[in-house]
């Protein structure tokens, strides 16, 4: 399954990229995060993040479909 991932802020720096298109067997955002955290050594634990799929906040257990765009959201700090 092909997914599009975008990275922001600390996670962009730790991944060394802003986005990528990935072939993965991860069925949910939770599984995808586990896979990517292993690859990039993300220091933020999953309970510190939110996740968005196709530009809307999502559940970690939502089933992913090919073509979905996934964004992990570190603690925000606007204003």
């Amino acid at each position, binding site marked *: 399954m092909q997914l599009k991932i975008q990275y922001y802020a600390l996670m962009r720096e730790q991944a060394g990229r802003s986005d990528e298109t990935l072939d993965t067997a991860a069925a949910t955002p939770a599984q995808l995060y586990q896979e990517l955290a292993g690859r990039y050594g993300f220091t933020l634990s999953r309970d510190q993040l939110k996740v968005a799929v196709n530009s*809307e906040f999502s*559940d970690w257990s939502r089933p992913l479909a090919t073509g979905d765009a996934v964004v992990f959201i570190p603690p925000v*700090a606007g204003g």
Partner: protein
Amino acid sequence: MQFRFTESPIDVGSARRELQTLSAGGYVSFEGWVRDLNDGQEVTRLEYEAFQELAVKEGDRIVTDAMRRFPIKHALCIHRVGSLGLGDMAVWVGVSSAHRGEAFDACRFIIDEVKHRVPIWKKEHYRNGDSGWVNCERCAAAPQHSHALHTHHEHQPHDHHTPEHLATTNPK
């Protein structure tokens, strides 16, 4: 659109004009300025970035929510992204209403929610050469203490975004 991003300095005069109406007797605005000290560290500049596609939707929901909660006339929030120096305006919120109490309440509600919910991040650069993503670096330094550190963060799980949101926005 009641929530917008800009890469250039926020034009308050023009934003304020969008809120004017002859039935409004009160206007309250908030501006967030880059200050020289944060958590005891001397700041030299900031970088803001946002997940804009989601941020404008979430920002719009906040302003719409404010208009539902408080009897106000108009409300608008503009957030800057990019590199900012000391004293620069990072965010502006403006609210007009018939009476002043609601304008104060709505303005404060909007900036509180924006800081809490909208996917915007800032990296502070310090005089001593260090830099750090606000609300993230301490998590990163000691992830095993993340629960204790959470009390220090504005980042909390939200009930606002349960899957019913997705039903309308996800084409799947």
